[in-house]
């Protein structure tokens, strides 16, 4: 075990994947000498050479399309998208090519491409540097989408993503890059499954589902709620496509209440998918309709106001109050769900 930052854990995972497989090649903007704008690839070009850590021209579709060609020939490209908001020029290559080539060729061409995306807000950046675009990709068949929430998962799951024969989008919560944690570098990535959700804290009253940057916030909310006597089970989804519904279902059957929280906007987001699926599968177990605590349906705001947009501990606990039918911020609003006592 060693203590390292989130960012360092990804770096260590990349290094181990490159050590283990000469076909692993890193591509991106400024990832060489600079080590990336977040220094995630720090030192890798020096140690593995410019052919394995490639500073590409500044064009995301170009990087992604070139990675597709390399995958055709047996390489495992790991592409760094500099910021979430810069992934869109590569969108066509990702959804029309990366996601579909295996299907198009009846399995003859595999696309073992890992696309690393620093995502989410909370770092005080200008526009295009704080977005949460994961739902665009979870809606696309053929892509696996994961998001990591702690250094150990960051270390293990980057290796699992690279080892996957399917394309994987690997969303890194950039505001947690400097968080430190214990990492077991001897952990064998093959001994666990990046597709499995993880129960972070066990509880009996409410299931709180989240991923990426909000996992620590959700854990804090669970601690705060326990002071009021409410027992929250926090689930870190880890895999956003496919979603490990079995773990979420088992929890909701126990608690009867579901809150989903993410930074991304609400409409058409992952929270909607999870709420709908769990309602379909666990309707008879639910004590209250699932509640979503998400970013607002607005373009990502300027940095001085971003903390009004991002779900925080208080807003998550307000969601918990709603599913617990306690007075909450929506009480008294027309059409709001009725608090406990008024119901039935």
């Amino acid at each position, binding site marked *: 075990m060693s203590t390292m930052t989130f960012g360092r854990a990804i770096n260590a995972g990349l290094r181990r994947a490159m050590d283990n497989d000469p076909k692993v*090649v890193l591509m991106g903007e400024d990832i060489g000498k600079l080590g990336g704008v977040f220094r995630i690839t720090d030192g890798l070009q020096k140690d593995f050479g410019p*052919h394995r850590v490639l500073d*590409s*021209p500044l*064009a995301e*579709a*170009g990087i*992604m*399309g*070139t*990675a*597709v*060609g*390399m*995958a*055709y*020939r*047996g*390489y495992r490209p790991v592409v760094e998208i500099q910021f979430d908001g810069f992934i869109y*020029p590569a969108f*066509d*290559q990702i959804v*029309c*090519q990366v996601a*579909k*080539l*295996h*299907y*198009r*060729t*009846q*399995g*003859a*061409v*595999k696309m073992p491409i890992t696309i690393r995306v620093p995502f989410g807000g909370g770092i005080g950046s200008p526009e295009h540097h704080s977005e949460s675009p994961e739902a665009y990709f979870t809606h696309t*068949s*053929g892509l*696996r989408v994961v998001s990591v929430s702690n250094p150990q998962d960051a270390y293990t799951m980057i290796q699992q993503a690279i080892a*996957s*024969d*399917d394309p994987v989008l690997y969303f890194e919560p950039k505001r947690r890059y400097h968080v430190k944690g214990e990492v077991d570098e001897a952990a064998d990535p093959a001994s666990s499954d990046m597709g499995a959700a993880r129960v972070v804290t066990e509880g009996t009253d409410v299931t709180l589902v989240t991923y990426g940057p909000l996992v620590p916030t959700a854990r804090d909310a669970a601690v705060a709620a326990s002071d009021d006597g409410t027992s929250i089970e926090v689930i870190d989804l880890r895999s956003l496509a*496919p*979603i490990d*519904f*079995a773990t979420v279902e088992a929890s909701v059957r126990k608690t009867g209440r579901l809150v989903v929280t993410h930074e991304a906007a609400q409409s058409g987001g992952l929270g909607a998918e999870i709420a709908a699926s769990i309602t379909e599968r666990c309707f008879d177990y639910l004590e209250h309709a699932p509640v979503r605590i998400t970013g607002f349906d607005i373009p990502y705001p300027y940095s001085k106001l971003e903390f009004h947009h991002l779900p925080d501990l208080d807003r998550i606990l307000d969601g918990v109050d709603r599913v617990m039918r306690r007075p909450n911020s929506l009480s008294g609003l027309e059409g709001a769900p009725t608090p406990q006592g008024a119901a039935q």
Partner: protein
Amino acid sequence: MSTATNEGRGRRMGGAAGGTPSTAAHALLPSPEPVQLVDPEGHPHPDDRYPLPDGDRLLGAYGRLIAGRRINDQANALVRQGRLAVYPSSHGQEACQVAAAVVLGDEDWLFPTYRDTVAVITRGVDPLEVLTLLRGDWHAGYDPHEHRVATQATPLATQLLHAVGVAHAAKLRGESTVVLAMCGDGATSEGDFHEALNFAAVFHVPVVFFVQNNEFAISVPLKNQTVAPSLAHKAIGYGMPGERVDGNDLAALLAVLGAAVDRARDGGGPSLVEAHTYRMQAHTNADDATRYRSADDVERWVLKDPILRMRTYLKTLDLLTEESEQAFAADADATAAVIRKGLNTEVEVNPTELFEYVYTEKTSQLREQAALLREELARDADAAAAGTDGSMEGDQR
């Protein structure tokens, strides 16, 4: 602006009036006129830079030209008979199709578009596997690794970047592979075209970008795509050489594309070749070309047909005999017969195959959805066995 005006600008840029570009930069510019080695009347048109390919090579390629035309005609007929969903024909462009395939060696890769069916078949892929896409039996019917031919790209220019990646992989692996990537004039407006050329040049990888300029992107003429002196002139902007070639002259295509492939194989890096040709038929059977061009326009290109001039040329040299003509025709007929027979045979499609290959392993969501479809199929089968309509039964529930 007419094509003639575009060419006029090209001549001026290449001449002294265009300033005094460095010799190195100047060498990247294409010929002022498309390279032609055999004119439309079948007469040789010598060019110091590009020797005429030898007789055997031309004769062999001519045989493929005859087969290519026959494939286009046969596929069109099968569309009319409802056996193919759609067929974007390369009628008139067969010299480009054949040349693109035959200039490559076994270790090379070809990246074709939807209109390049003849090139793919000429490269050696089973015609029925190639037509799987246009028949609607699957999105691609062949394994790209088998003949080193990528799937036929439907979006424009996306495949050019994949070609760069394959070439980059070859460079990393120390292989002598050359990649020939095809696109049309319309595709040169796409961002991926620009990024592919730039990446290929910066990475200095062995790709030949081959643009078939057939003057139309469905209905929109070239002048609405670009005001560059020619498409080949775009190459200099990326620091690679561009060349223009008569796209209906098989000899010139073999010479120019062959030189570009040799150059790439020898470590010279990428280049761009623009072939001036013409789409003799509508974009597809769903298109109505009379809405955007006249019969006279098309008629002018009939005289430039790639088969006519090569036949005249080869006969003049006594290279093409009665026997070889008959043999080529018989060979083309045999290919057409294979296509006809194959497409007139019903193929059993398996609905549950829809869920295969989405991922390398089915997700639990896909397993559930596959089970739902299997259930529906079983109900339909039961209803069919009982002599009732399964879907009606479903509606009544």
